[in-house]
């Protein structure tokens, strides 16, 4: 039970990003090299000369966690040949949702296509938190962010959340899964499975952020459970044996009402106060239903 992320980092109290890293590294073990896109995780763990990482870790920019991982994997291949060694560290690329869904997507897609042996982990807190809670294509319908504010002409974010795991899976790679920090067993099993493939894999980790979503810090884990139990976020996996066929790994017996989830967070407050925004609430419900249908949990 060696903690591969040391304390002393500067994440907010209750930060989901560090929980995600701790769980991922717990499954991966110390023979691991990480890359990291610019974002909360990077900034909170590595203000020079302080680092919280016990495994080798590299960062260079916001766009390129996957390209960095590609370079490391290629370097290990070449150096192994050059030196007659056979080192095979796990290569794990971390990025927030911004560094995955938006500005990091192209590098990710390229790395997936080239087939590098690496696991890309997106900790998804559904906005650009590091710069102060801006809209991301990962932000859900109706969410307030500082660039999708509510107002007389706006009910928060207009568009649906980009289906990133499906997009990754459409690359026809060995392994794609979704996970949530509130379900560590499920998450760790997926990390281990992902690392067992000799190719690229993608893990989309739901990571509720108390600061950005406006809920009390002790609710981080509860919020993740609520997302799964309401069907807002579905935990599944896909292998290339059956492309685009999600296999749900955590199936709530019965879905709780989506509004329970929404009302627990300040970022959706405008949907209920001063009065209920029925149009947006309906869109959100439809979106959840649509996704559940997509993964086969609803007809």
């Amino acid at each position, binding site marked *: 039970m060696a903690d591969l992320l040391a304390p002393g980092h*500067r*994440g*907010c*109290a209750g*930060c989901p990003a560090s929980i995600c890293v701790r769980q991922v590294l717990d499954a991966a073990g110390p023979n691991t090299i990480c890359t990291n896109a610019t974002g*909360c995780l990077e*900034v*909170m763990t590595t*203000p020079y000369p302080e680092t919280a990482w016990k495994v080798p870790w590299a960062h260079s920019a916001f766009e390129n966690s996957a390209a960095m991982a590609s370079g490391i994997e290629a370097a290990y291949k070449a150096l192994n040949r050059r030196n007659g060694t056979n080192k095979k560290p796990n290569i794990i690329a971390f990025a927030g949702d911004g560094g995955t869904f938006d500005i990091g997507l192209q590098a990710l897609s390229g790395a997936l296509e080239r087939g590098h042996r690496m696991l890309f982990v997106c900790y998804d807190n559904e906005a650009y938190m590091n710069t102060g809670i801006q809209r991301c294509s990962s932000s859900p319908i109706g969410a307030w962010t500082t660039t999708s504010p509510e107002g007389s002409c706006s009910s928060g974010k207009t568009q649906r959340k980009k289906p990133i795991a499906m997009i990754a899976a459409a690359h026809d790679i060995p392994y794609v899964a979704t996970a949530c920090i509130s379900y560590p067993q499920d998450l760790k099993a997926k990390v281990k499975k992902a690392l067992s493939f000799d190719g690229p894999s993608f893990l989309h980790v739901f990571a509720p952020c*108390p*600061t950005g979503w406006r809920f*009390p*810090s002790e609710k981080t884990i509860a919020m993740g459970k609520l997302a799964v139990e309401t069907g807002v976020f579905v935990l599944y996996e896909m292998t290339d044996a059956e492309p685009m066929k999600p296999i749900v790994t955590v199936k709530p017996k019965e879905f709780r009402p989506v509004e329970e989830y929404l009302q627990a967070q300040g970022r959706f407050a405008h949907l209920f106060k001063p009065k209920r925004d029925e149009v947006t609430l309906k869109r959100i419900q439809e979106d959840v239903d649509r996704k559940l249908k997509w993964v086969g949990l609803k007809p």
Partner: protein
Amino acid sequence: MYEVRFHGRGGQGAVTAAEILAVAAFSEGKYTQSFPVFGVERRGAPVAAFLRMDDKAIRARYQIYEPDAVIVLDPSLISVVDVSAGVKSDGVIIINTTKHPSDFNFDSKKVVTVDATGIALKNKLGSATNPIVNSTILGAYAKVMEIMGKKGKTGINALLDAVRYKSPAKKEENVAATKEAYETAKV
């Protein structure tokens, strides 16, 4: 020029406190400049903010190293941060605490205390774990300036207007709390 430093925690509103005071001073004809310690600190971490006030336009762009006054929003910071660092010898340190000024000794600099947390909670500003004291504590500031006749003086009415203007919600609760702090500060 009168310079104030605010100590708080990320998310607690130290910057807002500085801005409220700036608005108050501005409304009384002063030039002001307020800014946070520029950092990447997350919620909960100790942060600081600054305020300059002057009768002429302020052009200086460096940090404040020798403040005239210090305002401490969270008493727990005192053990973590050197809140009295650089304070001018005739400066004043205003602390949100239930304690009495004489319980503190900062190189014999003047200390003012006020139970801003208690007052804020009484006025329903924030919660027990997260009281919002940024406007409240300024009442104590106004009081001490008034009493001491400092250059940093800000009339209580201007302050209350500023509190009202800068409070997105619970305007009157904030005003009431500020007024109460003004009245109960232990100078």
